[in-house]
């Protein structure tokens, strides 16, 4: 049987408490389990507020942090066994990351195409300039850009949406099978946000890339995800089909989260701020 794309198996992460004599331990992630099927690419969403452990979980999936309990297997292989540089590069070419602020992800003093070339060289083993250019141009075409548009340009010459698309192209250079996107649209302008979101859908449908989408925005999560988990202080409180969970959440925390989302329709129905104002739960 073919192994799953990703198995997160009862994973925990504990940080030692701050302070010299403190014995307090902070359990950032507690016993989280889920799997992604290799044959069915999907958008898997992790929802949580700040401090819920969603970013810690992401860095463990990216193998930049080690779990203190449980194990993570990518294509059947335990991430703890990836040690040599060769194994690491092989892993990174299959699992790529996209971050929140594209302006932080790119060095402002370097032209953006340099990153794409480096990715092509390191992850795809393109030795010649022509091979690299073809590879990079391919990746840029997938996100609706071209090398001619991007070549030699610096981050400040781009809009946030364009730059985030280049970040996605960079992740696509090595033809990954999994992309971990940590709040990829929260810094992007409203008029361009849906372009990037729709791109994730295209990656899933046309390129067969699975995406772990980490967010606190329930509306975009509803729009693109297939399945989701909701995390609260390190624990998964609710998991399931995205539409079902968001339409009718069951766990008290999910219900609170769902009710806190301000919607336009809710504003006219009076389920918005006024409902809150009547019962001052401001503490």
């Amino acid at each position: 049987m073919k192994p799953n794309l990703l198995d997160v198996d009862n994973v925990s992460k504990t940080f030692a408490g701050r302070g010299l004599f403190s014995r307090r331990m902070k359990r950032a992630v507690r016993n989280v389990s889920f799997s992604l099927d290799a044959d069915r690419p999907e958008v898997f969403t992790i929802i949580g507020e700040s401090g819920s452990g969603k970013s810690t979980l992401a860095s463990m999936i990216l193998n930049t942090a080690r779990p203190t309990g449980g194990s993570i297997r990518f294509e059947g292989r335990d991430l703890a066994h990836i040690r040599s540089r060769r194994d690491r590069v092989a892993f990174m070419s299959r699992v790529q990351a996209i971050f929140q602020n594209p302006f932080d992800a790119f060095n402002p003093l370097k032209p953006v195409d340099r990153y794409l070339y480096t990715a092509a060289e390191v992850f795809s083993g393109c030795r010649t300039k022509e091979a690299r250019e073809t590879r990079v141009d391919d990746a840029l075409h997938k996100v609706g850009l071209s090398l001619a548009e991007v070549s030699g340009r610096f981050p400040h010459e781009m809009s946030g949406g364009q730059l985030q698309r280049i970040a996605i192209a960079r992740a696509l250079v090595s033809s990954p099978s999994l992309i971990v996107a940590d709040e990829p649209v929260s810094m992007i302008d409203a008029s361009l946000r849906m372009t990037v979101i729709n791109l994730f859908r295209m990656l899933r449908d046309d390129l067969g890339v699975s995406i772990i989408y980490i967010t606190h925005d329930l509306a975009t999560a509803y729009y693109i995800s297939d399945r989701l988990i909701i995390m609260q202080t390190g624990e998964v409180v609710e998991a399931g089909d995205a539409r079902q969970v968001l339409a009718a959440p069951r766990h008290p925390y999910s219900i609170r989260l769902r009710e806190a989302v301000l919607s336009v329709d809710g504003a006219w129905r009076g389920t918005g701020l006024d409902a809150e104002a009547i019962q001052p739960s401001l503490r």
Partner: protein
Amino acid sequence: MTLLHPAAASAAAEDDAAIPLLSVDRLKAYYRLKLFGIDREVRAVDDVTFAIGRNEIYGLAGESSSGKSTLIKTIAGAIRPPLAVETGSVCFNFSDGTRDIYRLTPRELGEIRWKRLSYIMQGSMSVLNPVRRIRHSFTDFALPHVPEKGAAFAERIGRHLERLHLERSVLDAYPHELSGGMRQRVAIALATVCGPEFIIADEPTTALDVIVQKGVLAMLRGIQRELGSSVLFVTHDMAVHANLTDRLGIMYAGRLVEEGRTRDLFRQPLHPYTRHLISSLPQIGDDTPKKGLEGSPPNLAAPLSGCRFHPRCPLAIDICRREAPPMVAVAPGRRVACHVVTASPDAVAPAMEEVRP
């Protein structure tokens, strides 16, 4: 001074109520930069006219680089080079007299700030001093502006915090000991303790989690209704505008492109950009595909001729490329700057339906 006839007096009072608290008239504020001997001007606020009445929350929506932050700075009188006001005026009609903000001396400006005009910023840490207890921040900001001193002053702050459902013990905390939402609540308490007539709120909840955001917005609305102040609320989050604001102005590339009552604007957006903003908003339970806007945001350093939205506009016609559309009142309290819409408002709706996915 002659005594007014009672009827005349009440008429005068009505007049007074009709005068908006804030009037911004034909305001142009540019950044003038000199780089390697080349002069550049960035037209961040270009010919903006609007007014905010008493006891209302006026929302300002727009993406980054649409000029909304610059507009706030010019309204608050915080103008430092390279930002310069070219033309136009900003007038506040406070209860103790009308003030043109650009004719005030720094001293007079200092007197109205915080007492009559206060701010809530996105990062509360830029208001709260990280090495001083919250109590000291209150003393620093509010003490010069209120009549109470000493114990009476402490009592006033305590009562104000209680009114906002905050515990008095936060006064003894350092900012880093409080959560982000709590700090933002303290920042709101700080901004409202002197009972200002006008509050500028610049993305005060953008950095907060959803659950916390709702609480903070409800608190802001509660205190606004209680004080009867006017609020200029800036955010790019349309869902927040729908829930909080009374009237809404949409900015694009340094210009106001549409303005109206929030509800009307959401029910029937007129400007193509507003239509896009509202129709592309993802919502739970809504399964229709949403589209991003083609093209890139405008470069304010090299503004386009004509309407600044025309390269991205699905309705653009010839005149849009040549002439900038003026802001036209199409209905009471409703203004829009678009050649196509003002020429034939009825023709727009079907055309937009075709464009929509």
